[in-house]
């Protein structure tokens, strides 16, 4: 019981923090005279504060928490954010049911980017501001945000940070690391917004729309989210300069924050020695090769320019986990078999750890490949020989059985999620290939869609994808901790009060 109170307390504090972030869309609504949406955000803030404070009152002493409790708070924080974040959206008129609003909210916070919004082209700017802001909040990690803002989580800060799945050692102090992550984000978001604003102005958009769309697309790309303010996503703009800028932002967003730190420190060597960076670069290169072949054989998208704009763009969008899309859902068939598989693999393999990307993550792919090589070497060596393999990730390391086991565990968890989601989608009657595609997109928090994700999707599938996006963002461990705790509580209740 004591444990539940502690968890409730910290959850409450995070929810109140989330309520404060709703001030931004509120300010947007007031500035642009969007009165009805403004009320939606006042409502959202008020309800969130009420719920958050009620929970925080469960234990006002701010007790220290164990690692296991931190994992559970982490899992519940994402779920709470999705539900609380859905409140203003649910009142917006762009979501037929509350579940639809929760879908987009979860999609936003987990930086997925799948959307079930209705009438997106007429959505109020403040609502679009909130949708895209969820990418920024979720991308930086709800908990990192809380830590760096020094909300009172005395004693709990370090546990929560690890629970988030972050393992940066950028700076010895967790609060300082959080602040550095925000610094890098601020630089990239500022530069990105300015560049895209200029591009939009040149294209003929008015100042307000140019800057708002620039900001939204920047954070959607850098936080590898993938939302866009129009129903056609990035295709609305028909703008190669915009797409080019987004590509740079996507790459920046999928880079490990440790690498950002190294480059900011002036250390150029890490980027090229790092196993993760090499694996990701090689992965993208191989898949780009496949898509180039597929396109040129297919004749339809055969020019160099088209290979770049539709092929390379989507491989990077997929691999970084962004999900910005410049083709209609029905157009994936134009990619040809190899092209489509390349996109799915890009989504499945994912970006770097300690970034906002999703998927299995290139570091793990790299380690698994190295372990295969290591096994081959061992097999070819005399039995008494000691064979070791080195790799570099921030520091020099050796391929050990523990490292490989960990990488394979995550690989397996993701594969289970991908395949299960595919089966569920197919079970609902969707075509197998499309169901697999959509499943991988949800589980790896990418956001590219074959059209299965829509407001008219079956409710069961909506709920399933919500859970898949949630589980993928948490990399399964926190969710397992939560599930185990719940099962223990139900099947083995404690006899005495703690």
């Amino acid at each position, binding site marked *: 019981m004591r444990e539940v109170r502690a968890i409730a307390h910290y959850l409450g504090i995070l929810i109140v923090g989330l309520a404060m972030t709703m001030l931004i869309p509120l300010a947007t609504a007031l500035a642009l005279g969007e009165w009805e949406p403004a*009320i939606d955000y006042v409502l959202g803030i008020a309800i969130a504060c009420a719920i958050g404070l009620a929970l925080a009152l469960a234990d006002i002493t701010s007790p220290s928490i164990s690692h296991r409790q931190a994992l559970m708070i982490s899992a519940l924080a994402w779920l709470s954010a999705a539900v609380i974040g859905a409140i203003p959206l649910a009142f917006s008129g762009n979501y037929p049911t509350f579940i639809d609003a929760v879908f987009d909210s979860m999609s936003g916070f987990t930086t997925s980017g799948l959307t079930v919004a209705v009438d997106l082209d007429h959505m109020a700017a403040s609502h679009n501001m909130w949708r895209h802001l969820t990418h920024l909040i979720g991308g930086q990690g709800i908990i990192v945000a809380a830590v760096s803002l020094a909300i009172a989580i005395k004693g709990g800060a370090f546990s929560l940070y690890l629970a988030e799945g972050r393992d940066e050692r950028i700076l010895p102090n967790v609060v300082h690391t959080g602040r550095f992550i925000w610094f890098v984000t601020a630089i990239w978001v500022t530069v990105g917004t300015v560049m895209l604003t200029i591009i939009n102005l040149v*294209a*003929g958009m008015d100042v307000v729309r140019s800057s708002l769309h620039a900001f939204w697309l920047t954070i959607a790309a850098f936080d590898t989210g993938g939302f866009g303010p*129009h*129903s056609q996503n990035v295709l609305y703009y*028909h*703008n190669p300069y915009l797409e080019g800028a987004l590509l740079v932002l996507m790459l920046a967003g999928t880079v490990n924050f440790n690498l950002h730190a190294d480059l900011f420190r002036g250390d150029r060597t890490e980027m090229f020695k790092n196993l993760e960076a090499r694996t990701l670069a090689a992965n993208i290169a191989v898949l780009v090769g496949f898509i180039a072949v597929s396109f040129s054989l297919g004749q339809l998208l055969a020019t160099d320019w088209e290979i770049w704009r539709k092929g390379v763009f989507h491989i990077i969008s997929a691999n970084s986990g962004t999900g910005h899309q410049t083709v209609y859902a029905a157009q994936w068939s134009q990619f040809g078999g190899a092209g489509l598989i390349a996109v799915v693999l890009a989504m499945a393999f994912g970006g770097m750890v300690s970034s906002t990307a999703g998927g299995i993550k290139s570091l793990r792919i790299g380690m698994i490949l190295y372990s295969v090589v290591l096994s081959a070497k061992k097999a070819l060596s005399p039995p008494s020989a000691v064979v070791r393999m080195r790799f570099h990730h921030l520091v020099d390391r050796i391929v050990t059985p523990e490292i490989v086991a960990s990488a394979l565990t995550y690989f397996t968890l993701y594969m289970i999620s991908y395949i299960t989601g595919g089966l569920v989608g197919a079970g609902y009657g969707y075509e197998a290939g499309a169901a697999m595609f959509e499943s991988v997109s949800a589980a790896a928090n990418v956001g590219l869609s074959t059209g299965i994700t829509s407001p008219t999707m079956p409710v069961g599938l909506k709920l399933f994808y919500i859970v898949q996006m949630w589980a993928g963002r948490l990399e399964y461990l926190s969710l397992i901790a939560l599930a185990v705790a719940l099962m223990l509580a139900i099947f083995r209740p404690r006899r005495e009060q703690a």
Partner: protein
Amino acid sequence: MRRLVVIALCAALVLSVATRAVAAPAPLTPAEAVALALESDGAPATVHGEALGEALAAPGGKRWVNIGREGTAIGVVMTAEQAAEVPRFGLYRQRGATLEVSGVLNSACDEHGGDLDLHADTVSVLDEGGAIVDPLHPGKLWLAGASATIALALWARYRQLRRRRHLA
């Protein structure tokens, strides 16, 4: 003589109706146009849709206007003059002009980097569009007031409890 004139007039009438029926395909929604483009690249089509957002720059001094209906929109390439004729575009609280665009569909336009688009021959404004009202719901205001009151009360209690334990 009169009979000849009447016959000629009837023939002209029949022909004009017949040729129009043959030449002009039935108007499509943007979603249908996308499907048709994928089926038959280069097909002629007439599409009805609401002009969205704004006219954007396209190569060669042309303009992009995205027209949409029921959640799907298609990009139309038209001349700057044609784009200037569009009175208003779809935004929050504004319904854009409904356009009828006749032209050629491309499933992966080589001219425009592989975009699926509609190259317009003729553009006409069917409806000028107008304001959409987003009415204020008093119920929401009551709910907001009630929640805010509860939240303030809880906050006061929280502060009080912490002060009591010297935690402030």
